[in-house]
């Protein structure tokens, strides 16, 4: 920024006549003349560059970069051509034979670029946050007379054929007001307000808005450092990336560099308000440390929740794997054995060996019993109908086997739930029915299903003697854990008069 400002100053000095002529007269060489002309023409571009990069010193938008770069080429070029043709300085050994229209065209090109540049400055102001607008506003104000000037310039050309007002000089108007911008620092009184608020106690979620207010930057964010994870996080525990140096955002670290507590992420226009940011940061440091502990806790909880869900999924897929191994392995082999025993029996009968055929029959009966037991075992591990047809048919299948009449009401909509949710609700219904059959002396049960846009729920009720609770040695405790593992909840209401209602709901958005 400093270099740019110096460049503008020197350029302005050189470019203002009659210094350029004087300089060229002192050292009478064409090369010096051209150098002086170029130096004198390039300062408006440097000023534009300065305005667009203010205050961070970096051109962030691609459009800004393109316009500034092209201007750096166009301005000297146009000026050199115009001067060479129009002024026809004797040092260049030329005479003025060129039509005015070329010079006018040069002026128009310059003015056009300056108007585009002004537009970009306004755009930056519009797109900026409050802090940037605040620091840019005086510049914008200064640009009003500039634009008016330019309009007059064009008006002059069109109306009165006045050609000779150099467009570049219009920027001098701007220069006279620009310094206002540098003095537009944010005041410290807002940080005082922040300290007062802090003494009254600020909840972690109030810290960010309070800081944003104190630093006049609504886009300000607090990023908390999580040492265990090695990354920054917002208050909710979601990961945050700090801004890269050449973006429109900047960050200040709080705490020592080895172990930061948090970082403030704000609009890069606040960079030159270092002292203010530091003061505000120092004021909230204790509060931020507290908030960080809370964030850490949340992040850990989230991790535990995720790992619990993973455990449930792993257990489910293990059950499925075991069932599949039984199905493709032992069950299939026994069935194949059954077939081969039938073939052997047919052969025995063909040879009229009745005794062997009878022996084989006895073996077949035993084999069928083994197959039956194996089938029940596999089904208990993982009911295939759950994967084949979904939760509702699987629940109906459960109720068809239940020794107490069970009504199934409602449904869960067209789309199937995710497999872990289906399995969770299935095991809830299965365990609830088993419990009711074993302990409740119920004569009637009811399974109600329901689903809204984000929750799927089952209610299993019976007219038995109650007595179901989570503390007992029943499977209900494990069920409650399982439901919680997928982010849902299990509620049990059980008493002697009205029986037991087990309600389970899982999020399914």
């Amino acid at each position, binding site marked *: 920024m400093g270099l740019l400002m110096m460049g503008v100053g020197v350029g302005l000095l050189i470019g203002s006549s009659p210094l350029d002529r004087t300089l060229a007269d002192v050292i009478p060489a064409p090369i010096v003349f051209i150098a002086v002309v170029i130096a004198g023409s390039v300062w408006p571009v440097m000023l534009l560059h300065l305005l667009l990069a203010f205050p961070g010193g970096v051109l962030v938008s691609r459009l800004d970069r393109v316009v500034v770069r092209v201007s750096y080429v166009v301005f000297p070029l146009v000026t050199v051509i115009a001067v060479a043709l129009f002024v026809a300085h004797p040092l260049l050994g030329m005479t003025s034979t060129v039509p005015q229209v070329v010079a006018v065209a040069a002026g128009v090109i310059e003015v056009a670029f300056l108007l585009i540049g002004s537009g970009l400055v306004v755009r930056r102001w519009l797109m900026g946050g409050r802090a940037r607008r605040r620091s840019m506003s005086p510049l914008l104000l200064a640009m009003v007379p500039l634009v008016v000037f330019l309009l007059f310039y064009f008006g002059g050309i069109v109306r009165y054929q006045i050609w000779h007002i150099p467009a570049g000089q219009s920027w001098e108007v701007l220069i006279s007001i620009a310094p206002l911008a540098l003095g537009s620092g944010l005041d410290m009184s807002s940080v005082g307000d922040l300290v007062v608020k802090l003494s009254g106690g600020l909840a972690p979620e109030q810290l960010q808005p309070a800081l944003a207010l104190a630093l006049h930057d609504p886009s300000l964010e607090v990023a908390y450092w999580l040492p265990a994870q090695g990354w920054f996080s917002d208050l909710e525990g979601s990961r945050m990336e700090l801004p890269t140096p050449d973006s429109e955002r900047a960050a200040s670290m709080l705490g020592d560099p080895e172990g930061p507590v948090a970082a403030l992420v704000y609009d890069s226009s606040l960079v030159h308000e270092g002292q203010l940011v530091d003061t505000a940061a120092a004021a909230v440091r204790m509060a931020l440390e507290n908030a960080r502990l809370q964030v850490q806790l949340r992040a850990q909880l989230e991790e535990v929740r995720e790992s619990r869900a993973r455990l449930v999924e792993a257990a489910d897929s293990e059950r499925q794997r075991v069932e599949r191994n039984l199905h493709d392995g032992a*069950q299939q082999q026994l069935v194949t054995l059954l*077939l081969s025993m*039938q073939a052997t029996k047919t052969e025995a009968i063909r040879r009229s060996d009745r005794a062997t055929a009878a022996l084989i029959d006895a073996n077949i009966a035993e084999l069928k019993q083994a197959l039956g037991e194996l089938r029940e075992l596999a089904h208990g591990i993982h009911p*295939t*109908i759950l994967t084949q047809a979904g939760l509702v048919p699987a629940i*109906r*299948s459960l109720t068809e086997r239940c020794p107490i009449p069970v009504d199934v009401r409602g449904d869960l909509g067209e789309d199937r739930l995710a497999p872990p949710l289906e399995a969770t609700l299935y095991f809830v219904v299965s365990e609830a029915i088993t419990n009711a059959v074993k302990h409740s002396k119920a004569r009637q049960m009811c399974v109600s299903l329901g689903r809204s846009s984000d929750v799927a729920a089952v209610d299993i009720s019976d007219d038995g003697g109650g007595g179901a609770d989570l503390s007992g040695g029943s499977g209900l405790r494990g069920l409650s854990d399982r439901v919680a593992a997928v982010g849902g909840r299990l509620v049990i209401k059980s008493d002697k008069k009205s029986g037991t209602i087990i309600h389970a709901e899982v999020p399914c958005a």
Partner: protein
Amino acid sequence: MRVIVADDSVLFREGLARVLEGAGFEVVGQASNADELDRVVSQVKASLVILDIRMPPTQTDEGLVAAKRIRREHPEMGVLLLSQYVESHHALDLLGQSPDHVGYLLKDRFGDLGEFVDAVRRVGNGGSAVDPMVVSQLLGRKRSRNLVEDLTDRERSVLALMAEGRSNDAIASALKISPKTLEAHIGTIYSKLGLEPAGSDHRRVLAVLNYLRSS
């Protein structure tokens, strides 16, 4: 009778083919997955396909899907779906689309060869065969208002055999009763359960199963 056999285990297919051929069937094609089965079915003429409900690639319900597709695309060809575990849901799913030419049996049914062969013939000849386990589960289902309990034991046996897809002749000879007595039983069953008398045998299967499942 010409039969196609589909299962992903070659040992099982060979065993089944041997048993079927021993019982007088002609095994004219084999397939180890649904795609292969589609090819065989379009190339070979057969009375029915015997296939496993679980086939590659997902080992869930590829067989069921293939069975329904074959019934749609080759109405003259029967399908007999085999499974290690039977569910009334699948039985009605399969029968609901077209109750004729359809069977659904436990793989254990090879244990009683006569019954199994009978079921294969029935499906091959356009009838239906529903596994006794599906039927007994539905019959034994506890209901709050249970009209099935009003049936006599004999009537319940008749109802079970009807639900399995047996013809009147088969039921009469299985229960060793005269066709006339059977007609009388069936009439009583329909009036006790409040069922409309159904036309053909397989329509009857569907009506009875639906009643047992939904009542």
